[in-house]
């Protein structure tokens, strides 16, 4: 699968990764090679084979709806570049 610079720009936008205009072409070349590898999956006989998302096909266990973790809110907020009054602060979204 060969992808072009416009596709890289689109994926990078979805992945929230800043990619410079001059990086688009080399990245497109690299990703095309990785996708060529992925395209080998086309040879597989998968008719009627159900997808396997998880090795042991576990179902999630039930547990009592009770608080089991300590309250570390302040410790977590202290890691943020900018937090005040129990809130994470980000650049203004609405003018």
């Amino acid at each position, binding site marked *: 699968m060969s*992808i072009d610079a416009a*596709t*890289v720009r689109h*994926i*990078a936008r*979805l*992945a*929230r*990764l*800043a*990619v410079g205009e001059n990086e688009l072409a080399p*990245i497109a070349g*690299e*990703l095309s*090679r*990785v*996708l060529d*590898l*992925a*395209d*080998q*999956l*086309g*040879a*597989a*006989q*998968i008719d009627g*084979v*159900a*997808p*396997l*998302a*998880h*090795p*042991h096909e*576990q179902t*999630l*266990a039930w*547990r009592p709806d009770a608080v*089991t973790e300590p309250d*570390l809110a302040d*410790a*977590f907020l*202290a*890691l*943020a*570049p900018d937090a005040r009054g129990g809130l*994470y602060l*980000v*650049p*203004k*979204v609405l003018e």
Partner: protein
Amino acid sequence: MSLSITQLAQALRERKTSATELTRQALAAAKNRADLNALITLDETGALAAAERADTALKKSPASALAGIPFAHKDIFCTNGLRTTCASRMLDNFVPPYDATVVDKLAAAQAVAIGKANMDEFAMGSSNENSFYGPVKNPWDTARVPGGSSGGSAALVAAGIVPFATGTDTGGSIRQPAAFCGITGLKPTYGRVSRFGMIAFASSLDTASVLARSAEDCAQVLAAMAGHDGRDATSADRAVDDYLAALAKPLQGLRIGVAREYFGAGIDAGVGAAVQAALKQYEKLGATLVDVSLPNAALAIPAYYVIAPAEASSNLARYDGVRYGYAAKEPKSLEDLYTRTRAEGFGAEVKRRILVGTYALSAGYYDAYYLRAQRVRRLIANDFAEAFKTVDLIAGPTTPTVAFKLGEKNSDPLAMYAEDVNTVAVNLAGLPAISLPAGFSEKLPVGLQLIAPAFEEARLLNAAHQFQLASDWHAHKPEGVA
């Protein structure tokens, strides 16, 4: 530190040494081998305090088998109050306010962590060249890679700095460095060891375990790490086998499947010969070799390099510059904060996988890539299930070659991915596997991989231990290592 964990524990009990003395030795050895670049953080103060606690515990019997034994954690496990970087600029300043379950468990066993081992960034890599902190060197030849992603852990053990180290294995990240560094590395069944507090890469593939010099040492450590954990929803709720008790069982009647696909093109002749010789040794020990086939083996790399990046792109979405870790300076908008934080905080291979994964999950391509890879994943799991109807273990070389030179493959992602040809299928199927030293090629260690059905870690450790009783490949050390 050339003694085994069992021997060190004995010496500690007989007061021939102390946890503090062993810890001082390990810290000195780590500093002495700074050239290996195997540690990101050396925690002298924490280690000496833990050693003192272990010495107190050792005075009261019975102490845990690991009490007072120095070791290192791969820098992917969160350590309360101690920087945890995952070898990424993104987490260069991250000091977690809690411990991973693996960290908790080894601390409860009074083992003494000396620091945090170097690794490929976010565990993505097969050479340890993708670390923000620079590559790790292989103690057998410092011009060569130690393998990855648990390269720091493997180098520390191979260089005799610590008797064991923790590691993680998503596609071979314990087994491949164990093979390249001439040590023993166990990848457990998915769900056998808790993932809580282990920084996520690909959540349906990630496993945590141990690298050590012998299967017996691996058994000691796995016994302390394994078990159900309510804080990991995918943790297996089943009893942990007695790994140590299982070691002594003779191998008479053991059926070892020799997977012909694992000896295919691309496997170096010297590696293949060493592994075949090791299999002959297994026959002498009473095992029967059976030819088996894993028909979809060639699809494991393409399936893995869709599924792992897809899961990574989702897991790594959390690094946004808002809550913790690196944040781009003077963002002009929220979008600018996100995109520049991620562009500046992640290295090239991590970005590549995020982009591949995002593509494979995106509208219009999901069915052709991600869903197709998951169907192939079932074929691969079915191949193992079919083979295990007639054999107890499956064997082959852990890696196609011995340790390669620094810089030899890191400019070509596909050449690097090809390194994982014999290891990734095991993760896709969620099975346990071990790599143990099986000889040398070009004066460098060769690893034999044994794969077992789910939750049969005891069988793997038994088979590896019996081989190590009858051979001394695991006892070889790089020149200059005491």
